[in-house]
């Protein structure tokens, strides 16, 4: 069982931190909220690997009902032998704690939320590492994790991901009518598995809808690792 920790520098970056001088009082409060986030979260993930069929112009994951539309995901997976579908969450305990924070203090809620974003990335890294390990066992190589909402892959694929992975039963994850995930601190993604080592294995800002005005990008500190 991996240990999941909030990366404080990353959480601060989400809050717009760029080296401002802060004092101990605020710093201690942030540390307490990070500790609360680690305490009130139960990071967990599931993934399944399906063969990829790109012959029809869209990506079909064989053995599931998932069909992924859009040119970005097509590009991401068209040469892949198979694709790992992953779902990661901090759990409903984190969601409950968030509600409590919001009622008590907007500041606490904002810091707690940023800490949660960092923690769920950490859990997503662990899930991706498990996928990479399984791929390696099969002699395959992976590319980066591509999430719905990135590029032109629509969010409306979320309910199908939840169904395919039974993430509702296994993780307590559900999608709203507007295709947002609850718990809010959840990530779903697709990782391609390839015969050959990939040259471009990293995500970039290029395909992101927010690229033109993203403040993290401007600061040279993108939201992904």
């Amino acid at each position, binding site marked *: 069982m991996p240990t999941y920790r909030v990366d404080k520098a990353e959480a601060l970056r989400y809050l717009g931190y760029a080296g401002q001088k802060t004092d101990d*009082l605020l710093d201690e409060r942030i540390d307490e909220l990070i500790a609360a986030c680690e305490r009130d979260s139960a990071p967990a993930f599931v993934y399944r690997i399906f063969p990829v069929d790109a012959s029809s112009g869209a990506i079909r994951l064989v053995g599931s009902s998932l069909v992924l539309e859009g040119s970005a995901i097509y590009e991401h997976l068209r040469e892949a032998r198979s694709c790992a579908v992953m779902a990661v969450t901090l759990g409903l305990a984190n969601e*409950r704690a968030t509600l409590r924070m919001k009622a008590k203090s907007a500041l606490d809620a*904002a810091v707690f939320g940023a800490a949660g974003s960092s923690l769920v990335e950490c859990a997503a890294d662990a899930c991706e590492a498990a996928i990479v390990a399984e791929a390696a066992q099969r002699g395959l190589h992976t590319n980066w994790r591509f999430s719905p909402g990135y590029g032109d892959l629509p969010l409306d694929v979320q309910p199908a991901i939840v169904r395919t992975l039974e993430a*509702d039963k296994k993780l*307590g994850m*559900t999608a*709203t009518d507007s295709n947002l995930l609850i718990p809010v601190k959840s990530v779903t993604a697709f990782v391609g598995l390839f015969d050959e080592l990939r040259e471009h294995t990293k995500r970039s800002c290029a395909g992101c809808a927010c690229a033109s005005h993203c403040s993290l990008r401007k600061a040279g500190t993108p939201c992904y690792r």
Partner: protein
Amino acid sequence: MLPITSHAVCADARDSLHIADDYLARVIAGEEYLVFDGAMGTMLQAAGLEAGELPELLCLTSPDEVTAIHRAYVEAGSQAVTTNTFGANARKLGDAASVREVFAAAVSCVRAAGARYVAADIGPTGALLAPLGTMSFDEAYDLFAEQVRAAVEAGADIILIETMADLLETKAAVLAAKENSRLPVFATMTFGEDGRTFLGTSPRIAALTLSSLGVQALGVNCSLGPDDLRPLVDEMLEVATCPVMVQANAGLPHVEGGRTVFSVSADAYAESVAGMVEAGVRIVGGCCGTNPAYIANVADIVRDKRPVRSFARPLCSVTSAQEAVVLEGRHVATIGERINPTGKKRLKEALRSGDSDYIINEAIAQTEAGADILDVNAGLPEIDEAAVLVDLVGKIQGVSGLPLQIDSSDPVAVEAAVRAYAGKPIINSVNGKQESLQTVLPIAKHYGCAVVGLTLDEGGIPPTAEERFAIAERIVQAAEEAGIPRQDVLIDCLVMAASTNQSEVVEILRAITLVKERLGVRTVLGVSNVSFGLPLREVVNATFLASAFAAGLDMPILNPLSERYREVVDSWRVLCGQDVGAMRYIEGYADKKIASATAKAASGAPAGEGGAPTACEDGLRHFVITGRRAAAGAEVERMLDAGESAMAVIDGHLIPALDEVGKRFEAGTFFLPQLMASAEAAKAGFDVIRSRSTGEAVADKGSVAVATVKGDIHDIGKNIVRMLLENYGYTVYDLGRDVEPQAVIDCVKEHGIKLVGLSALMTTTVRGMEDTIALLREQAPDTKVFVGGAVLTPEYAQMVGADYYAKDAAEGARICAEVLG
């Protein structure tokens, strides 16, 4: 709002359950075993069902295959067979098929397989209920009710509600079954390795709640392998007052040579199930990974056997989704009284203005102070009590795990609130008047609530212990006649003030003892009234509370924030044996001293905040800029004491400090948490001014409504905007998240609002923004709109029709200043 019809009155129909045959009746009475079937999904996947497909559609497209699976189970010994309708609700089926046709086909498949009983399967809706999710209780209820009606129409024998993780969703399904059919209802939930559902419900909580709701069987399904389930099942057996049902997984799945294999063999499974049957489980079957071979073994275990154990006795219990308060022996539980507008100006204001955060924080404070149960009362003549009570109960359940006591004299409000409550609440209250008994008790029975009985009747509150006892006796009798076990009746002998009814105080104590000893029921008491009109009320209250405990009081209603009360409760728990070994008392009090009156003198800036300003500096300004809440509040207090006017404090210190913080944020020398910490410190100052003002002092600069639009649930940014605007003196109506366009319009019209702020985080939810603005333009054309959110740009803002784009909260405040002045 809820269509409030009295569902409680249809309770009578349930007295004549439609039970398929005598054997099933004996199963429900606990006199026979019943064998269910095993997995359907596992079998369908083995036959080639794709992941993510809707297996329910196979009832229509491949009925023979579905029937063949059912038949295999019947042949293996399943008496009750579950329809392939787990996800057959309107939300999941969408346009693929109607609920009615799927149930009709599914029931036919089971019948064709020759099953003795058809159990109509109902799984979760697939959406999470509010407050954590966005689906309302009524929406969930409607989805379930449609399934139940379809099951009845198709001729099912049992409604099986299963694989539930959310106690509230389970309750919605159980109520839908009770109110739309006369079929027996079996309900099982699924738990994780930590012994809780994803929403924190333990098997004990589930069993207590579902028993009270009047299901015919309850239990566990899915979750884990049978050995890992055993402790969870034992928890249920201890408290369930109906048959317990278990359908475990065949252990954990793993992939072997491309096939999913489960870790527990059919033989091992049977061995575990045999142990559970021995322990008292009466209804057995299987879940994921089990197949007819497992069921054949299970059927062998109970063949020609009859259960010998009896059900658990009913307990005096109250539950929420996360906590159960069970009173045994002389244990006591405290009920927090603070959410009740009587005599509380600030709470009345909060109820009138819809400031639920204030009320929610009262709930959080009482929870943190150690209350066991919270009383919730929203009784103000000028508000829609039922609507407000339902809303508050939902919100409080989102932040506090404590069980609630629903406190209202309006039966409509009581029913609406207990209906959508996750767990088994207390109703406060019924009394000895015929009308009250006739309206309140059916509600308590139908929704499985505990109920407080006040010892008053048409003749008022009688003065002697014997007369109060007589009313209590009548209430208990009426409750039992209504089908409510006496364990669920809590008698309140009604406190009178010692200053006006001195002779009655000892009568009250005597009445408690009489009720406890002769009726064997628990008692509650609103303690604080006893000291009305006397000085140092807390001293009188504490003395009275201690005597009431000695007289047999179980559940005092009190202010848990009062230290004196806490001391009495904590020390009594040592004396009555509840705090075993005085562990909690020693932990909490070992380092404490009895505080002397002088030691509590003015504290100024509390420890930890430090950073005192130098003599020449403006103290308040410093405290705001450095984000020191307590110090800022204390400093404002001091300035007002020294004769400064509220306006001078605001205009001369608070606002300039906030402006300075805004500048630093703009220049990048402050980052967001610093801006917010300053806003909190300033708010502490404003709160002091507001609490000391007589009404005129704080100028209102105008009203703004803010909302995170329909479809979006990311509201942290909106909350930050609200906080800053409040600080600048605007009245902010915060409509929350996932807000319907019409709700924004209604608020704008009701309060004559000229400026609305909308937030959306995702490109996909910006559409909700566009819809809201379009409706505003149509119905409130004078209202200006500013928008913000991660994906918005000035161009995008213009495209959706907004007047202003706010790149951050500080910009939002500037826009307000421009529009409202």
